């Protein structure tokens, strides 16, 4: 007897149904994690004094945002430092990436340095930042900017490299100048990689700012997390850690939406 061919489930064919299902799975995992954490803390399997528990964190969240101006101040300080660090990272990373991608001599001379800098653990240099920029915002901005610009630079280079030579040939054949090639080929062609670079840049700048605030600053979220932890106020420290994590996730989602809107053509390109 001939067996009828098996039908494909609709979710496999419908991307939006697949996305909804994936979101449900993700939500269940997160809820499951917090429930397990609460249960383990309540039965004493984990030490509540060092690991806290979700209900205690929730209570601390209310207290910290009800009347404690330190929390708002720390958030605004970190946001301010991050924005400045990211602007500097973009201002250095974008032109440097373009210069490395478009000029063979500059690439030959400096690309290896950028790759080495990208590979080595930057935290080891943090004390040097204090020597140059002092304790406080200066070091946090500089450290965040350095971590950010390296990511932006390498992504811009990779983005320009990924543009097929035939597009430059067409621009030239149709009378395009170098400026036309830059505006009509390089920028849009490298846009997906540039977006990825900017995202990695802002994420790394945020990491840099938090690390600097923890170790060489007396303001911001990083500093408050350190203070709360040193004072065994784990509930409050956890609130700030979770806020930081959620902020990065939300920013990443917004970034993806913005990228999808600005590089709509990408979804039409067949592999």
């Amino acid at each position: 007897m001939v067996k009828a061919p098996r039908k494909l489930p609709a979710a496999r064919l419908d991307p939006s149904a697949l996305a909804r299902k994936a979101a449900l799975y993700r939500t269940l995992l997160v809820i499951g994690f917090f429930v397990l954490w609460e249960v383990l803390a309540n039965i004493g399997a984990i030490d509540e004094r060092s690991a806290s528990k979700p209900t205690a964190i929730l209570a601390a969240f209310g207290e910290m945002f009800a009347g404690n101006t330190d929390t708002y101040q720390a958030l605004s300080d970190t946001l301010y430092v991050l924005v400045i660090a990211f602007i500097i990272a973009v201002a250095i990373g974008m032109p440097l990436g373009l210069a490395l991608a478009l000029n063979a001599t500059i690439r030959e001379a400096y690309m290896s340095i950028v790759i080495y800098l990208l590979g080595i653990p930057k935290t080891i240099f943090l004390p040097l930042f204090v020597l140059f920029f002092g304790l406080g915002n200066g070091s946090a901005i500089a450290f965040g900017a350095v971590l950010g610009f390296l990511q932006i630079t390498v992504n811009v280079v990779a983005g320009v490299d990924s543009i097929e030579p035939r597009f430059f040939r067409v621009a030239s054949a149709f009378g395009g100048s170098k400026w036309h090639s830059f505006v009509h080929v390089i920028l849009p062609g490298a846009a997906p990689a540039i977006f990825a670079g900017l995202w990695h840049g802002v994420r790394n700048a945020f990491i840099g700012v938090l690390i600097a605030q923890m170790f060489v600053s007396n303001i911001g979220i990083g500093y408050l997390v350190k203070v709360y932890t040193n004072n065994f106020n784990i509930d409050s420290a956890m609130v700030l850690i979770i806020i930081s994590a959620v902020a990065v996730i939300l920013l990443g989602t917004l970034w993806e939406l913005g990228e999808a809107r600005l590089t709509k053509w990408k979804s039409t390109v067949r592999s």
Partner: protein
Amino acid sequence: MLPNRTVRETKETKMISHLNVENLEIRYNVNAAEPAITGVNLEIKQGEFVTVIGPSGCGKSTLLHAMGGMLSPSSGGIYLDGIEMARPDPRQAAFVFQDYSLFPWKKVVDNVAMGLRFAGEDKKVALEKARAELGFVGLADKADKYPGELSGGMQQRVAVARALALKPKFLLMDEPFGALDEQTRRSLGQELTQILHDAGQSVVLITHSLEEAIFWADRIVVMKAGPGEISKEIVVDEPWPRSLEFMTTARFDDLRAELFHRIQPTTASEAK
């Protein structure tokens, strides 16, 4: 069917232009043992449809790129109405490439308007002209799509529209239908070449196909390899419009046999 269109400025309505290739030699490397092409002399009049055929590596594409100002001659020169083609000027000679090379990040209409915008045309005017040109190749309804949303045949029509939008004196087509399947290649090729011929558009078309070289040409330029040279020019005096019946005539068979024999010895020497 493609829509009708007013005949372009042809040899009947305007002074006849001439594209002259004089003693052209091109070397990709000054130390190379032999040039890519050498001693090439060719004159193409406005309104002519010229096909160029030859074995792989004979320099067909090199010749075409040089004609469009994309390659600098090592010696000799390319002249359009007596003026040297020192750099690409798509209003004089515009390209259609085999791989279409449409910018995937631009909508179809913006791809067609690209050359006009590069030439300094106002954006609104350029887009209007681009839409008109898309209508000419039967793709008016695809103007706001991205190239990736079109079939290969449609993308090549867009590439033709992009070149025609500049109203070039000469259209340089580098194996424009080579990436298409056989059926699309034949139908699109016949449709576009007929319409280009009707419009009086001067065309230089590179092809590997003996049938295409004969069917579409007013004149066939045969090249040989090692180094690339023109070995023969053959006039195809079959009147236009041409039907597929032409391919079943004795004249067509004779021309195909002649081309076959002219290309074969070169291929054999290449194989050695």
